[in-house]
């Protein structure tokens, strides 16, 4: 652990020596900004998600677009012997290429409530692929959509019975009627019991279809609308493969993927009198293995685990995870910075990672007395909370992610920085990287990762407040909110405004 505070620190991965710290390298960037280029609001990335296999990556932006990337390094010579040999000497890491993009949401206007509905994509979740097609859910503030992305053959019809060029009205049977002559006769041919000759009519032929090329087509399969009075902050698929949840500020709804016209409300925290409202739902996620369990976080810094087996309306939680407030530390900002902006289950479902304004916390779902580890992310900003409140930065919602093996956690920060911490027992790994082509440029002393004894006031190794290692003041306008960890490899995708940066280690 980190120095001599001697506190017991349990942690995520199995015991044994902690894995060595990772050396992060730049891999790729999509949509890099040239110097002085202006960022269009609509191009700013607002959601990132790897699919389960890690072969695909999706990003959503404020303009309502979803962009898909596919992995290229495994696909080309997957499984071949050469591939295996190559593995031995070359440093192989996931590489992606642009696959396709589509307009998922459009700006809308709710006439009943006189509200504009932004097209911004809040969340993307991948669903089970089928028949070589990809499926994903995307949501803005109000409407969830189910997309199918598939290679479709472009068809050319080369032979027909009726030459379309000779006959202007070929798409309907009107011309015959118009000619008047056959107005009655055709009916006979189409009637159920017209006696065709037993061998059929030889002059009739089926259209001949030739297909030369294929193209990727995204089709919206279902639209799940009108179920949320407040803004949707999360969607999450269940491991049962047929349901998903959507959460807004006050409610969590359960949907069947195949039924878009009804959903079941499973959590409702709306008080009868809205003046009594003290806490809102900030994020929700299904357990990755148990389809009956889900967790949601609140603006008061608590995480509730609910078991849908217990009752139809899960207003009472099964487990509550929250950290007791340190005595005497209460201030005007306490509640604001306690608000959890994102939660993620580890792949095995044992741990929950949560991000609040100042810290990342790792919780063991079998231990509700406190987090098994917390990592300081923004401790250096504590003296500046007033400024952050003034310019609303204090309400920024940073996402967090876990590596596929659960041994590391990562989250974003300001000045396009992100941080990676080792979560294994005894690990002191803590890296600060910049979303640029040279991620290690701002590498600094490992900042404190402290255990629960933190609250006793012993703080070690915090960074110098107010500025980073290079002495630059923090730039609160460039914030790295969205990031995702590849499910099987040490590879991170993160969004800096309109650019998508990929790193590997």
């Amino acid at each position, binding site marked *: 652990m980190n120095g001599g505070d001697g506190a017991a620190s349990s942690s995520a991965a199995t015991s044994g020596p902690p894995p060595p710290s990772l050396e992060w390298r730049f891999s790729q960037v999509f949509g890099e900004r040239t110097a002085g280029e202006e960022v269009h609001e609509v191009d700013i990335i607002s959601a990132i998600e790897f699919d389960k296999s890690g072969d695909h990556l999706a990003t959503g932006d404020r303009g309502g677009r979803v962009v898909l990337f596919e992995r290229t390094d495994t696909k080309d010579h997957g499984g071949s012997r050469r591939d295996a040999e190559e593995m031995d000497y070359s440093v192989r890491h996931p590489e992606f290429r642009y696959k396709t993009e589509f307009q998922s949401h459009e700006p809308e206007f709710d006439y009943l409530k006189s509200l504009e509905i932004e097209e911004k994509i809040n969340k993307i979740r991948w669903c*089970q*692929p*089928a*028949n*070589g*097609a990809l*499926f994903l859910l995307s949501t803005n503030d109000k409407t969830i959509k189910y997309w*199918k992305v*598939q290679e*479709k*053959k472009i*068809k050319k*019809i080369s*032979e*027909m*019975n*009726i*030459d379309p*060029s*000779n006959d202007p009205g*070929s*798409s309907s*049977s009107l011309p*015959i009627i118009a000619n008047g*002559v*056959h107005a009655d*006769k*055709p009916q006979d*041919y*189409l009637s*159920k019991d*017209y006696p*065709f*000759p*037993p*061998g*059929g*009519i030889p*002059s*009739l*032929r*089926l*259209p001949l*279809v030739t297909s030369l090329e294929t193209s990727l087509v995204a089709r919206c399969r279902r639209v799940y609308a009108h179920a949320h009075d407040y803004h949707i902050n999360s969607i999450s698929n269940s*491991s*049962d*493969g*047929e349901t998903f949840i959507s959460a807004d500020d006050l409610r969590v709804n359960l949907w069947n993927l*195949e039924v878009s016209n009804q959903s079941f409300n499973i959590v409702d925290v709306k008080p009868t009198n809205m003046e009594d409202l003290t806490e809102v739902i900030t994020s929700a996620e299904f357990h990755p293995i*148990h*389809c*009956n369990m889900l967790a949601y976080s609140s603006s008061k810094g608590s995480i509730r685990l609910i078991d*849908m*087996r*217990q*009752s*139809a309306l899960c207003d009472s939680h099964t487990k509550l995870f929250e950290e007791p407030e340190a005595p005497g530390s209460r201030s005007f900002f306490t509640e604001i910075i306690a608000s959890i902006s994102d939660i993620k289950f580890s792949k095995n479902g044992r741990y929950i990672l949560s991000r609040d304004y100042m810290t990342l916390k790792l919780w063991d779902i079998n231990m509700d007395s406190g987090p098994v580890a917390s990592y300081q992310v923004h401790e250096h900003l504590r003296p500046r909370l007033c400024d952050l409140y003034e310019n609303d930065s204090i309400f920024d919602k940073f996402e967090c992610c876990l590596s596929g093996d659960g041994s590391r956690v990562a989250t974003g920060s300001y000045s396009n920085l992100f941080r990676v911490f080792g979560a294994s027992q005894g690990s002191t790994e803590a890296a600060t990287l910049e979303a640029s082509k040279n991620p290690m440029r701002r590498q600094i002393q490992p900042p404190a990762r402290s255990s629960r004894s933190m609250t006793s006031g012993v703080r070690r190794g915090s960074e110098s407040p107010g500025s980073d290692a290079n002495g630059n003041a923090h730039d609160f306008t460039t914030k790295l909110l969205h990031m995702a960890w590849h499910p099987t490899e040490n590879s991170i995708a993160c969004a800096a405004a309109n650019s998508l940066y990929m790193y590997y280690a």
Partner: protein
Amino acid sequence: MAMVDEPLYPIALLIDELKNDDIQLRLNSIRRLSTIARALGEERTRKELIPFLSENSDDDDEVLLAMAEELGVFIPFVGGIEHAHVLLPPLESLCTVEETSVREKAVDSLCKIGSQMKESDLVDSFVPLVKRLAAGEWFAARVSACGLFHVAYQGCTDVLKTELRSSYGQLCQDDMPMVRRAAASNLGKFATTVESTFLNAEIMTMFDGLTKDEQDSVRLLAVEGCAALGKLLEPQECVARILPVIVNFSQDKSWRVRYMVANQLYELCEAVGPDCTKTDLVPAYVRLLRDNEAEVRIAAAGKVTKFCQLLNPELAIQHILPCVKELSSDSSQHVRSALASVIMGMAPILGKDSTIEHLLPIFLSLLKDEFPDVRLNIISKLDQVNQVIGIDLLSQSLLPAIVELAEDRHWRVRLAIIEYVPLLASQLGIGFFDDKLGALCMQWMQDKVYSIREAAANNLKRLAEEFGSEWAMQHIVPQVLDMVNNPHYLHRMMALRAISLMAPVMGSEITCSKFLPVVVEASKDRVPNIKFNVAKLLQSLIPIVDQSVVDKTIRQCLVDLSEDPDVDVRYFANQALRSIDAAAVAQS
């Protein structure tokens, strides 16, 4: 490009439109697939049309759904049963699409075709198809496969049968929960075709596995399998193998599984037989009636009468009745409502004395429930109790309940109670009705909501039918006639509506003497809406009254109306006049 003879144009067009860009035209062509097939002839249908359709599986879902349906009845068009196998490839590819409704339709069609195929063809083409699907790379194919085993299995060789069973066993343990769900819901069907030796061994092992699945959604489908399998097994086996599973399910951690048990319990009881029902399932049912989750109690409460039918009255009184008492004051209104909708049916089962002793207090408390649906449900089934204990014991509580519902602020509740008034009237008898309910019926005629007034007018007609015209003359007609002078034109209109409904019931004499003068008077109303309704009403009276009356009174009145300044009044008056003429022509 070929030009076809002009007479063939429509059919040629139909064929071309199989590939039109407009989905509606494609859909239209697919729906007429049999016509196309007949035009092409059997051989070309087999050799060209069917392969053509097999290539078509990336079309829109609606088109694929229609195609899956058409192909199910396509055997005559490909040349009969011996050529049925050519239909399998297009349906096989439809079995793999991701849209559930298309897959289900394709499976249906395959089952239809497979059940008609000759055994040798089944082995040659159908069984390999099932095996291919069951080993499919994508889950959609494997899900479809589950629904085909019961067709493939019959008429197979023993070797193939063994293979199919083991293949099904694998599907029951598939990685994808969707596949396991499909396997669970089709297990009962498959089991009916499997020989009893394998039933006890292999099928039951698969079933056991599914009942212990980690996913709720799989376990709850296994519940349905309990009843189906139970009916196939020997009674002894059933008690040994199925009963413990049912009892376990009734205490499952997941409320959805318990809900399924509550819903299925009646069928499960039939499967295990009366003895085990008494000893094992009664305690299970009692637990479900006292479940923590309201949804489970709703399902259980709704089955209380059906379940009691399986028991003798003593057991019902001893075990079920205490729970019913608790449920009648359940915290969830939906539980009480579900109970109220069936509890009256318990009266015939328990008999007169027990009903008075045990059920009556429950009826009475439900009649006073704060939730209108509960009260309505009790009232709607009043006849069942009346047969057992008579209405007198209930009538004291009934009246306040009815009056309260009659004045409920939700018009749908008022509407519901009006629907039951004729039933109540017949059960309560004329005397009781006159005293207590007559006034209510007239009050509804002036309700603020049109649907209520409309229902009230209809109700008067039904009462007149129930109690006869003499009674109606005394108790209804005077009030209705009085309403014609109401200052509110909507109420006057309602009186006319009631007259038009009651006239056929009351007969010609009363219509002429009582109704007609009032109607004629109303034709001089100042509101045009009243006037054209008079015209419509007069038209409806024509067949009821004598021709002389028509000529003397009605025609004159209509002629006056036909000169009205209002265009609508003139229109309806002229229409009525024309129908008089038409009737006259018909008679002469």
